[in-house]
């Protein structure tokens, strides 16, 4: 992957420190909606997002009665329910989140109920907790709040599965107890017209392991901020992302690993593919290593594969270091078209150009899909990647027989 095409702006050229905006990494948060202006689009955190297509979610769109059905399974030992009133209020800010956007402040202030996922301490949940959110009316602007509380030394996997058509703003707060081992997967498999603005904020306990996987395929506009802070030393966060943008789609992922404690780890890998006119993806990877955060390790990586003309991938790693006493810090960002040498090699073995492209794309995503580590999701992702490829790369390709899962 060596080519950086003209249609692609890569932040690497700017260097990690260039364009750093102090208020971006240290946003002044507030629970009071009045403290947040309606964004104009010129703000650093909004500059890539086409606000017009948000249908007012970023501003003052009414949060209407939900038209998105929400169902879930309840594995043994877990409490999952919609709560309201005082209990809902008490869960606002569970993750340590102090809203730095108007919309998130509005969600915390105005949404009457919260979906609570409560995993008690020392509980090992044997199967994934799957929450299906299926949108039924894109004309309804709505908002939701989800609180996930994982007790000390608990172990669980939660999958948020988004399908259908919604126009939704969602704040997901995650508290990972000391020594817990938690995976949260958010799958954006929306219909073409969905609009989804979300903020996932996690607080990782001492010696806890947190894995977050953001997977975005569908939707007209999907923007997710996946942030993490640490409650004590030894916490580790793995932030994974996989996205596939088609013509006209805007998919934006931002992460913020805020190393607030010593000897913590963050490892982020986001990979995306783009195809079709005006497919636009954005990745902004913010990492802040605070003075207290000695002995930490961080690595973040974003790779984009541009499959057709007319796409744009923006990729901005942003690493800010306030202490010299760290184990390791690094980042990588690359955006490329198909590698001619790879295609030639495969074709020289008789494989057609389309089949070769498909092998390369599957190869590009394979490791990441495996890292998500949830078998039921793995199969689905492979199928979805295949379906996405069918739209462009594989158009007109007859037999798919030769490709199977790896032995």
């Amino acid at each position, binding site marked *: 992957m060596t080519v950086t095409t003209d249609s692609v702006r890569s932040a690497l050229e700017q260097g990690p420190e260039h364009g750093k905006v102090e208020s971006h990494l240290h946003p002044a948060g507030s629970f009071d909606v009045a403290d947040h202006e309606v964004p104009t689009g010129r703000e650093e955190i909004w500059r890539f997002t086409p606000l017009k297509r948000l249908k007012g979610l970023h501003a003052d769109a009414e949060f209407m009665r939900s038209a998105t059905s929400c169902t879930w399974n309840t594995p043994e030992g877990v409490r999952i329910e919609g709560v309201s009133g005082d209990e809902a209020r008490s869960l606002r800010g569970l993750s340590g989140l102090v809203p730095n956007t108007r919309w998130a402040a509005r969600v915390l202030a105005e949404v009457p109920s919260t979906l609570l996922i409560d995993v008690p301490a020392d509980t090992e949940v044997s199967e994934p907790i799957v929450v299906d959110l299926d949108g039924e009316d894109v004309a309804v602007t709505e908002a939701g709040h989800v609180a996930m509380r994982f007790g000390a030394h608990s172990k669980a996997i939660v999958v948020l599965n988004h399908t259908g058509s919604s126009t939704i703003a969602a704040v997901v707060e995650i508290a990972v107890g000391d020594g817990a081992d938690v995976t949260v997967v958010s799958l954006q498999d929306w219909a073409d017209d969905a609009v989804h603005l979300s903020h996932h904020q996690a607080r990782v306990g001492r010696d806890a392991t947190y894995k977050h996987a953001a997977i975005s395929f569908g939707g007209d506009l999907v923007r997710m901020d996946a942030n993490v802070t640490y409650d004590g030393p030894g916490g580790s966060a793995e932030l994974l992302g996989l996205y596939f943008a088609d013509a006209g789609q805007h998919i934006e992922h931002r992460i913020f690993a805020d190393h607030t404690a010593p000897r913590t780890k963050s490892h982020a890998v986001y990979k995306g593919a783009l195809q079709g006119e005006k497919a636009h993806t954005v990745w902004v990877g913010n990492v802040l290593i605070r003075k207290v955060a000695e002995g930490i390790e961080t690595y973040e990586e974003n790779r984009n594969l541009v499959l057709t003309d007319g796409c744009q991938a923006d990729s901005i790693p942003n690493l800010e270091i306030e202490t010299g006493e760290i184990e390791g810090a690094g980042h990588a960002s690359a955006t490329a078209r198909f590698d*001619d*040498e*790879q295609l*030639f*090699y*495969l*074709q*020289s*073995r*008789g*494989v*057609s*150009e389309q*089949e*070769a492209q498909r*092998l*390369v794309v*599957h*190869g*590009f*995503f*394979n*490791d990441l899909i495996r890292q998500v580590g949830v078998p039921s999701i793995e199969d689905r992702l492979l199928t979805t990647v295949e379906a996405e490829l069918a739209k462009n790369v594989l158009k007109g390709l007859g037999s798919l*027989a*030769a*490709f*199977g899962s*790896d*032995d």
Partner: protein
Amino acid sequence: MSKLVITDLHVTVDTEDGPKEILKGVTLTIKEGETHAIMGPNGSGKSTLAYSIAGHPKYTITGGSVTLDGQDVLSLSVDERARAGLFLAMQYPVEVPGVSVSNFLRTAKTAIDGEAPKLRTWVKDVNGALERLNLDPSFGTRSVNEGFSGGEKKRHEIAQLELLDPKVAVLDETDSGLDIDALKIVSEGVNRFREREGKGVLLITHYTRILRYIEPDYVHVFVDGKVAESGGKELADQLEAEGYDRYLKAAQV
């Protein structure tokens, strides 16, 4: 019956200063059952010849022809050439991250045969080929060429040669970077291929040492984009003793 005929082949590459001619009229015929060695100094155009036969997009054919059993090779796409029976073992095999060797081999075999191989015999064939080239069966689950040592890459190329069973194999410096044991293993692989009915081999090399294990029927000295001299295997011994100086001086005149 396999016959690769290269006639007056002219090839250019695009450079910043415009096209540069690399092959300046190559003529060569490889009949079935024959092994031809091409020897020449660095930069003389050996890899260019190999890639041009295989159809690498970097090279532009400006004249001449290549036919395989009478079929015009140059009008075929890269994959069609492979399906027609050409195989190129590359000097620098390419890494394909995330694509496992076993998936790659199965996909290639399916493409070349036009049908998926029978599962049971195929697994045995793959394991056998890997084993004969002294590659651990665990290579099947590794990504194609990724993290392979130089020698492992070359052995992987020859494992493919055995499995894909082309009519004519072009081996571009398959011997370079191999220690003596690996050289023997690779040579045995090539010799097993040569023993099959009607196969042609174009063996590109720098050094005569591989010719001790793979005995060529013909040796061609390649200088400045064309064949400067052809002979039997005694020509290789002469090159070993004298080097390319004589030809290089001649080319400069």
